[in-house]
């Protein structure tokens, strides 16, 4: 049923539809309304789950680690500094192969203190072993969550999944969202049934010491499993499409790339703005396209190479930066296409919630064609910069 919902509310409803048995989160900044709504659902008896209030995100992640290990589908949500406080446990969750879902409302990282949107938080945790999917809008966020549990919990996969949603732009934005019914979701998403779990009748130890004789194999097996996640996203995406009539569960989306000479590549809500800019540029006869990366982990190399096949100029926009190097998405796309004749540029934009307007996008398209840049910050205010610290 179509509803006019705030992003956080839609995400909370989607989480509820997936019937988690345990929800744990730290309720204060940096948190969104997501867990507030979920706590209300639990208090009102609308969902049969335990909402466990904790004193920090590190504890929230530890709680869902334990509950998922006990065989209960678990959910958490956080943001920026909170995600970083979870970091240690997130690596444990992946290593222990627990298919927990976490919604990350993407926000900037301190310092300076900033609560607005960019993607530095989840990008910094790309090496944690979590599947990472980035949503363009609230509808996609809902769809990726429902499909996400099915991808993560498959007995061949058993990896945690982070659905990344641009903070404020999506989490606090109102949009029409088509919410599936509980019956439809129950039909699509089977019950969580792990091969091993904490059970008093069959005692087992999890999260054990792995000395040099076994540690490499633990990492190797996660890496190999990510190869299986790519076809799994395609498979579940097809199932999702036949059940809900939307093709939002996919590795990448190609927008007018078939004949495009200039193709922009990015992730998340920015794709909506870019699509508008492309439509306007195409009306003037300019062949521009967009490759939206939905799955960042696993990194869908073949799908990206395919999407950029016809492009002569590629402009990659990162809402993050690996300080001292380049934007994360740029680095990986560039390494993928290193032996091609394409001119590939990387742009850093939208940090700490700075708006990326259609004018910015048009400027990026012009620059992509004009010259090769590896880490071009756009819209920098020169008047705010000093060359060196002043002694006086």
């Amino acid at each position: 049923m179509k509803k006019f919902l705030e992003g956080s509310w839609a995400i909370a409803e989607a989480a509820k539809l997936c019937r988690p048995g345990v929800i744990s989160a730290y309720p204060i900044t940096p948190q969104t309304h997501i867990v507030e709504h979920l706590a209300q659902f639990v208090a009102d008896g609308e969902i049969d789950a335990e909402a466990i209030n904790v004193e920090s995100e590190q504890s929230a992640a530890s709680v869902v680690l334990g509950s998922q290990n006990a065989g209960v589908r678990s959910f958490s949500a956080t943001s920026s500094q909170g995600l970083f406080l979870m970091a240690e446990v997130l690596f444990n969750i992946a290593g222990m192969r627990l298919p927990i879902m976490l919604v990350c409302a993407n926000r900037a990282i301190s310092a300076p203190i900033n609560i607005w949107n960019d993607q530095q938080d989840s990008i910094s945790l790309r090496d944690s072993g979590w599947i990472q999917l980035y949503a363009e809008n609230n509808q996609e966020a809902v769809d990726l969550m429902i499909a996400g549990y099915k991808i993560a919990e498959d007995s061949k996969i058993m990896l945690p999944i982070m659905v990344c949603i641009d903070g404020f732009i999506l989490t606090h934005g109102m949009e029409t969202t088509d919410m599936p019914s509980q019956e439809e979701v129950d039909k699509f998403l089977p019950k969580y049934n792990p091969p091993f779990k904490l059970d008093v009748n069959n005692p087992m130890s999890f999260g054990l010491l792995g000395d040099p004789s076994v540690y490499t194999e633990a990492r190797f097996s996660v890496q190999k499993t990510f190869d299986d996640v790519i076809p799994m996203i395609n498979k579940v995406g097809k199932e999702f499409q036949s059940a809900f009539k939307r093709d939002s569960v996919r590795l990448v989306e190609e927008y007018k790339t078939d004949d495009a000479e200039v193709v922009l590549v990015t992730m998340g809500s920015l794709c909506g703005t870019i699509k508008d800019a492309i439509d306007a540029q195409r009306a003037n006869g300019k062949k521009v396209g967009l490759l939206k990366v939905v799955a960042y982990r696993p990194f869908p190399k073949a799908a990206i190479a395919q999407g950029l096949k016809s492009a002569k100029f590629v402009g990659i926009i990162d809402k993050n930066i690996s300080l001292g190097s380049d934007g994360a998405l740029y680095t990986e796309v560039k390494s993928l296409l290193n032996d091609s004749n394409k001119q590939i540029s990387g742009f850093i934009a939208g940090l700490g919630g700075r708006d990326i307007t259609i004018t910015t996008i048009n400027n990026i398209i012009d620059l992509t064609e004009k010259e090769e840049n590896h880490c071009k910050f756009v819209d920098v205010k020169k008047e705010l910069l000093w060359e060196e610290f002043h002694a006086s």
Partner: protein
Amino acid sequence: MFSILASKAKTSRANKTGSWRSLKKPKYLKTNCIGCKLCKLICPEGCIEGKEKNQYDTNLDYCKGCGLCVYICPKKDIEMVDEDK
């Protein structure tokens, strides 16, 4: 793909971690023991066995040689000795 993720309860006893001990091991003199059990309670490895006074002893398969039993004993009836004694 998966590697070894879990193990059955008590299987870690196969790892004789007493080999991590270096230089000294506890020696129970078994003369002034009053059976207060403090050594058994403080042992971080839980590797002290025995129930009656003058019967307590360390299972050296798992003892790390931390010396806490010697420290806590009110009758000074345990001492750290060289490994080869």
